[in-house]
């Protein structure tokens, strides 16, 4: 399961109001639906085919799911398509949710699977990008050390990090987002991506090294 850090992003305050209905009117629902764990009644109604209840679930989870897709693919239009696909899948499968895990965890995992399927269909070799990588650290970290003012500590801003993550090769971005942003453990990632735990660790490390290079370059430019 994701660490609690990912839960910080799912505060009810981050989720805007109810989704529009077919006639444009806002659906009415109680305050419980503003929680990331929809009340059992809303979920049960959605499982029984209640369209309004499903709209409520969309309203509650749309930003979290869209953000996940956006981080994983790095492209807004693609992320919206994947969000749509995730909620379509949810609509098809919601009756099979048995409550073995939290609904938000179940939906999150469903969305990740949608993105992974999409990336595989695109022919992206999720875990074999090493050959395509320029060596991120093989030329040694010492090349730009000895310049303590280039330390990243305290100097990473959100935009720079977002840009650097978006620029990561897809396989690295995937691992970084799943582990460092979404909080999944290596054994969970290995299961999702059908790779070894060691491979997941190694790819994450390389992703961070790539990010470090990118962020230091940004920092360097800012100091010139």
């Amino acid at each position: 399961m994701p660490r609690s850090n990912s839960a910080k992003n799912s505060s009810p305050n981050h989720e805007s109001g109810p989704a529009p209905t077919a006639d444009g009117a806002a659906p009415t629902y109680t305050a419980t639906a503003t929680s990331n764990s929809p009340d059992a009644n809303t979920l049960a109604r959605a499982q029984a085919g209640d369209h309004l209840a499903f709209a409520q679930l969309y309203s509650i989870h749309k930003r979290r799911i869209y953000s996940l897709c956006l981080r994983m693919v790095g492209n807004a239009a693609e992320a919206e398509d994947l969000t749509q696909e995730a909620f379509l899948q949810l609509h098809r499968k919601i009756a099979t949710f048995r409550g073995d895990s939290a609904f938000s965890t179940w939906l999150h995992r469903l969305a990740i699977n949608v993105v992974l399927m999409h990336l595989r269909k695109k022919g992206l070799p999720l875990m074999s990008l090493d050959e395509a990588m320029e060596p991120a650290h093989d030329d040694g970290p010492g090349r730009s050390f000895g310049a303590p003012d280039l330390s990243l500590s305290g100097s990473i801003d959100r935009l720079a990090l977002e840009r650097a993550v978006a620029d990561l090769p897809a396989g690295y971005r995937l691992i970084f987002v799943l582990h460092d942003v979404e909080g999944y453990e290596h054994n969970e990632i290995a299961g999702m991506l059908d790779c070894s735990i060691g491979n997941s660790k190694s790819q994450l490390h390389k992703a961070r090294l790539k990010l470090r290079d990118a962020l230091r370059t940004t920092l360097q430019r800012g100091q010139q």
Partner: protein
Amino acid sequence: MTEDRKDLSCQEFQAQMADLIATGDDVSMHPHLQTCANCRALLADLETIAEAARQLFPIEQPKEDLWDRIELAIKKEEGSIQPD
């Protein structure tokens, strides 16, 4: 904390870094780092990046019309409207 671990080259230490970090242990106590400022700085940067990832990413908002698209697709699947 053996002498062997202290005598690791930077290359050897960095080859182990992914595993060391993934253990969740305090890697800063590794003997190699007691004498190597370069690898200490590398570790600090990597920890900063991981910490920033946890704290800085905002939640994004999809376009307002996304629900309309989803609703349309659901209706098509349910056969209540004809597909394009």
